[in-house]
């Protein structure tokens, strides 16, 4: 068995491309997620989208449309509940997204979705990735890059210092909604490969690794997608050869890189990532 053997299969080539792109997009969006201390929302949103995916399947609605709308609605609800200030954002995420996840599970049970299908959604699968999906993920990546380039300074200001950004004329609410939209779309289009339960790790780990090796926000936006893409690509090859789910191998590889960088960068790296690693 050679290293490149799996590339003779079309399903693997498609899965490989999606995993690489997914890693890059998650790394890019993840920079904002970790710097805004929103890691938990990535985790919650992926759970919520699972509920939307199950409901879409039951109602016969297009997966991306149904699950995407569901995810976006959940994100906006979390923001609204948290802004009211009666309960914290973490509690709002806990209630709304886990309820959505439970609903998805219940619908899958009642309407008899195959157990294997649920496992694929939860842990990721490279089977059945079409060229159209590869193109769709590539479009999401281009969209994320375009949004970040166009709103670079506004997003940076709203992330670093939202109160002053608001006074300075930046529409912070709109920037937050844009980030939520980017996050929801990223999770929606990449969860097939990585899985609902593991997607948040792909959002967080490359960004934290990037933070440990650089003190520059602009460089983080380059390093995190590169780390994410490398983990996605190499993780897919490992997944095939070790016969484990794609999500697990990608995340285990990212965790391994994290441990190596954490050890090599020493106190400086840990200092840089202060507040992200507890």
């Amino acid at each position, binding site marked *: 068995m050679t290293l490149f053997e799996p590339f003779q299969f079309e399903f693997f080539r498609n899965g490989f491309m999606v995993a690489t792109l997914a890693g890059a997009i998650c790394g890019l969006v993840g920079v904002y997620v970790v*710097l805004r201390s929103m890691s938990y929302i990535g985790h919650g949103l992926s759970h919520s989208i699972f509920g939307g995916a199950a409901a879409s399947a039951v109602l016969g609605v297009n997966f991306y449309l149904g699950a995407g709308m569901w995810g976006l609605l959940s994100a906006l609800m979390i923001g609204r509940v948290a802004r*009211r*200030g*009666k309960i914290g954002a973490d509690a709002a995420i806990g209630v709304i997204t886990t309820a959505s996840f439970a609903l998805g599970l219940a619908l899958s049970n009642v309407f008899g979705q195959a157990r294997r299908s649920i496992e694929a959604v939860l842990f990721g699968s490279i089977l059945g990735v079409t060229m159209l999906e590869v193109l769709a993920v590539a479009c999401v990546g281009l969209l994320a890059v375009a949004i970040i*380039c*166009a*709103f*670079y*300074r*506004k997003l*940076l*200001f709203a992330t*670093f*210092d939202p*109160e*002053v*950004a*608001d*006074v*300075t*004329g*930046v529409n912070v609410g709109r920037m937050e909604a844009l980030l939520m939209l980017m996050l929801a779309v990223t999770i929606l289009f990449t969860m097939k490969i990585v899985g609902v339960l593991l997607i948040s790790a792909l959002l967080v780990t490359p960004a934290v690794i990037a*933070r440990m090796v*650089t*003190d*520059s*926000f602009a*460089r*983080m936006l380059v390093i995190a997608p590169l780390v994410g893409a490398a983990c996605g690509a190499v993780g897919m090859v490992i997944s095939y050869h070790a016969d484990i789910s794609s999500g697990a191998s990608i995340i285990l590889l990212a965790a391994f890189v994290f441990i190596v960088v954490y050890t090599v960068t020493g106190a400086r790296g840990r*200092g*840089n*990532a*202060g*507040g992200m690693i507890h």
Partner: protein
Amino acid sequence: MTSLIELDGISHSYGGPTVLEHVHLTIDEGSFLGVIGPSGSGKTTLLRLVLGNLRPTEGEVRRRANLRIAYVPQVETVNWNFPITVSEVVLMAAAAKWYRPRATESERKRVAELLEQLGLGGFEHRHIRELSGGQQQRVFLARALHRDPELLVLDEPTSGVDVRTRHEVVHLLTDLHRNGTSVVLSTHDINGLAAHLPLIACVNRELIAVGSPAEVLTSSVLERTYGAPMEVLEHGGMLLVTDSPMGIE
């Protein structure tokens, strides 16, 4: 004198008890106003209402049309681990009108000039964490000045800084005011900062008094503001406020 901002009978609550009640306050062009009061008295809420970050639950805030306001937050609220350099912080001031990710040559020049003016020349590429407390405060001041503000609002500008830095900040603000910028700040530091300002507002859920230090820094006003007995002494023409005069040997 033209008024920049008028707070007309404003009250505010965050959903619970009222934090500020029926405040009437006018900030005129050329003002240099210090807001004092104990912790939780509503000083920051008052500033946020002035800035427009908050809307009053009662009353009205009137601002002069196209008023350029800049804000310097408390340095304690800043995430110093954020991966950002001094020049990137200052450049944020132009974020609302620029879509270009990279700064232009003229923007870089303007940032360098501002930093030079504030004694931070050559610090452009330093990470904000590498600066001293006073330098960090000046970086945020540079960001505020990048907007060429007519009204500068500062929340506790001398909180957590040493005496030398406090002097630097006071001198900087005095120079800015002399050059035509109106200044409103909140402070806990009565002797080191508020007593040197031309106008002081005492706040504790309501506006207790507004006036010059001689008018406002009296035992009765301060006792109403802080809810504790306070003495005012005069030393070398300056007023000194103390809450335990008998303890000084």
